[in-house]
């Protein structure tokens, strides 16, 4: 059954970017097939009922930068995209807390409780970051030009970016340079003094990377996360009703609406390459599908080192991909709870449970957690970004019960002796103990615990080394370098083989952006 199954495009991987690319290509009238290895769509943006009645956003748990034009063009609200606001960031401390809410005055008073200076600085910081966001956004929305052999459209793009940079204020330049080079700790030290505030803010600079808050380059990751706040009025940061899987399902329904075929439990073994051109794919079950082009939504390692033969690629490119840094640094613990956690520093139910709960009392806490990982151990007192999805969306758990999503860092992929069941449980215990330090009742209310190590993220979700961003968001792996120089515009050295995952520009997070821009690039080449 080979030549019957002829498509214009085949997308490998039904993650949110693969689905986005498929939706855009279908929308343009192309015949598209999406092949997903698992039984369920979504890749890392997936909702699964791991424990009866409790829905977990198993991996990716919040929606940051979902592009407004993607939502509109793919009509995602019509197909189920519903983003609820995450209201606050709560940092519990041993005898106190820091709670930042959506209300500026309330947040001012709260920070002033700890540092009057920081409270005022905080009011300046948001707009300043917004300005930087404005400066960076055009870069994120430009297909990375091939700087070595630029095409006409590449030159157009470079000219546009150059003009954009010329229009930036000296202040924007200063901050941009600092954010691109500094550590998040150093950058924040220039602004703030209250340690828990700085640590909580710096935490977004380490998420998904193998860096500590004092590692140079971490400030950029912080900016990457801040992008979600820029379009504040449209609440780009949010929690998807039904979990992040519902974002993927909305995109999938949109793709199907435009005519795409989507198959699950269809594991691609190899891209079929003939005379240097991709002509289709072969599944593990022996089926073959032909197509004019093949697009991989997988990470660069799988896209180039597994899906095709090295012999089909230039050797320098293979070296680049092998050197591409994709070290996983985080794990995920999902809990089914019988009741709400009760924080000693702020007991009972309240607004503080409706947003992010950040276990980040100090730089030292985060940096020590990183130190453990540097030497091949998981953190003994990890950094955590916790949310209680059922507080925002009660349908996530049975009435009165709750689910808790804990993003945990650090858990290195290359742990001493390798990951095994025993280590996974020990890692889970450390997470629970760390939470229990602030909310002692946690141990009594756990109905079920799902612990995912980087090794699990790799084996279940196909994230190489368990890296949530398909490769670190460090400067040498961004824009024209993501995933490799000359091949950052979604093309690959193999003709008719394209890439559209988070390992391409502008990187990870539930943005739809790589999928969208890859599809638009491909449609440009096609026409």
């Amino acid at each position, binding site marked *: 059954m080979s030549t019957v199954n002829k498509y214009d495009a085949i997308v490998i991987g039904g993650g949110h970017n693969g689905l986005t690319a498929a939706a855009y290509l279908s929308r343009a009238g192309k015949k598209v097939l999406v092949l997903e290895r698992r039984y369920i769509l979504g890749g890392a943006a997936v909702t699964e009922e791991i424990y009866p009645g409790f829905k977990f956003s198993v991996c990716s748990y919040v929606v940051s930068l979902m592009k*407004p*034009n993607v*939502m*509109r063009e793919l009509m*995602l*609200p019509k197909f189920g*995209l*519903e*983003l*609820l*606001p995450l*209201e606050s960031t709560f940092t519990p401390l041993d005898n106190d807390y820091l*709670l930042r*809410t*959506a*209300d500026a005055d*309330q947040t001012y008073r*709260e920070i002033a409780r700890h540092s009057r200076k920081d409270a005022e600085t905080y009011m300046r910081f948001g707009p300043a970051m*917004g300005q930087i*966001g*404005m400066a960076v956004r055009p870069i994120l929305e430009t297909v990375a030009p091939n700087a070595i052999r630029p095409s006409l459209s590449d030159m157009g793009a470079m000219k546009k970016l150059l003009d954009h940079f010329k229009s930036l204020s000296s202040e924007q330049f200063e901050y941009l340079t600092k954010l691109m080079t500094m550590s998040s700790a150093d950058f924040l030290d220039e602004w703030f003094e209250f340690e828990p505030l700085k640590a909580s803010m710096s935490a977004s600079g380490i998420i998904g990377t193998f860096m500590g808050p004092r590692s140079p380059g971490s400030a950029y990751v912080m900016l990457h996360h801040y992008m979600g706040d*820029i*379009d*504040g*009025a*449209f*609440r780009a940061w949010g929690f998807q*009703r039904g979990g992040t899987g519902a974002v993927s399902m909305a995109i999938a329904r949109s793709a199907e609406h435009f005519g795409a075929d989507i198959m699950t439990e269809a594991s691609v073994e190899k891209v079929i390459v003939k005379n240097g051109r991709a002509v289709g794919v072969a599944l593990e079950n022996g089926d073959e599908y032909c197509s004019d082009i093949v697009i991989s939504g997988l990470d660069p390692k799988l896209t180039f080192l597994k899906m095709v033969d090295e012999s089909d690629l230039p050797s320098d490119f293979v070296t680049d991909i092998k050197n591409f840094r994709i070290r996983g640094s985080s794990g995920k613990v999902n809990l089914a709870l019988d009741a709400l956690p009760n924080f000693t520093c*702020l007991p009972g139910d*309240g*607004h503080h449970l*409706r947003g992010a709960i950040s276990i980040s009392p100090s730089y030292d806490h985060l940096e020590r957690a990183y130190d453990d990982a540097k030497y091949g151990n998981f953190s003994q007192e990890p950094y955590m970004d916790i949310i209680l999805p059922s507080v925002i*969306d*009660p*349908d996530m758990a049975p*009435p*009165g019960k709750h689910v808790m999503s804990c993003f945990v860092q650090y858990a290195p992929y290359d742990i001493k002796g390798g990951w095994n069941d025993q280590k996974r449980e020990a890692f889970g215990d450390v997470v629970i103990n760390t939470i229990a330090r602030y909310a002692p009742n946690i141990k009594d209310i756990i109905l079920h615990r799902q612990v995912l190590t980087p090794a699990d993220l790799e084996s279940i979700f196909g994230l190489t080394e368990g890296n949530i961003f398909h490769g670190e968001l460090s400067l040498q792996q961004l824009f024209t370098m993501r995933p490799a120089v000359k091949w950052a515009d979604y093309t690959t050295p193999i003709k008719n083989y394209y890439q559209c995952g988070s390992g391409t520009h502008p990187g990870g997070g539930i943005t739809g952006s790589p999928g969208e821009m890859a599809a638009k690039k491909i449609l440009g080449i096609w026409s």
Partner: protein
Amino acid sequence: MSYNNPFTAETQLKLSPFFERTSKLNESQEWRRWSGYLSATQYELTHDNEYFAIRTKAALLDITPLYKYIIEGPDAQRFLDRLVTRNIKICKVGQVMYTPWCDEDGKQIDDGTVQRLSENKFRITSAEPNLEWLDTNAAGMELSVSDDSKTTASLALQGPNSRTILNIIASESLDSLKFFWMTDTHFGDIPVSISRTGYTGDLGYEIWMDPKDALDVWDLLLEKGKPYGITPTGLQALDIARIEAGLILLDIDYISTRHAIIESRKSSPYELGLGWAVKLKKKDFIGKKALAAEQARGPEWEFVGIEIEWNELENHYRKVGLPPRLPGTAWRTSTPLYKGNEQVGYATSGTWSPILKRYIALAHVKAEYAKENTQLDFELKVEHFRKLTPARIVKTPFFDPERKRSCPQ
């Protein structure tokens, strides 16, 4: 952070029977006036959660300030059928009809719902007082008109989880209660009427009760509704939802003919998108002649939904170095719409729709420009300067989920 600041104040406004609860829950202490009542603008410091309760959970709103009248007697049906534009003869017991009513010139006085409580007993709700208009038109008929505004308290429970919550509390299941029907039931031993109606365009119900039971009903709903995300909700969130639902608001989207002063301020149901509710086949009703004539020649104005196009809006802001500024709440300032150099309409309410991710508004547009997809220019102020930005005429309701009308299988 203290959530328990005691707060008491004097007011000359009326207090709803729910006020004892709502005043304590209102963390923002932001209130609006609604028909002389103190009515919560929002309960939390920002209204986002309340808005999303309407669309994704269950929002509880005190709608007691609505004007309500009971029409009872052998002529009640005949009377109402003559008064409003809908066909009340086909309104069955337990059915509810949304309807406008007009003066003899076919210009709209008000709009509301007519509930048929029994063969000869109806309740009509309105935005403004209508007792005098009802009384005047009841002359010579065998019926009584009584003001039910203070004798019935009401709550709206709106949102996808509203049915689940009511099914837990009510003595009978609401699974078979259809859109725009109502039923009498009990919450424990408290008698209540529940209508499947609302002002949000979502699955939702309105609960009608004796004011003496108000606090018990409120407490019961909050207690049983908690695991389903029940959220006390104010008018800020409601205003966004009703615009998404394409529902008009008296004094904002139109002016009652009774205090329009000048002719051009008056609107007919045809000009308010309510042509579907004018039943010209009915034998006779107030304003029929004028409405029939208007229908024959076609209305001069139409009431439409518009969407303000995103990319151009963003460009306007980008030019001044700002990210797009969007209204955080619904606005109610009349805003001009142009075709070329000519002003051909005006938007009367608008909002950023958090669920649709679109900037939408309701607008009066001259009939010849009111066709779907017609592109007009919307006046936008960017950094104090007036700009024109494209807007497109789109169908309303902007948001129309299937659950609004459907019943569980």
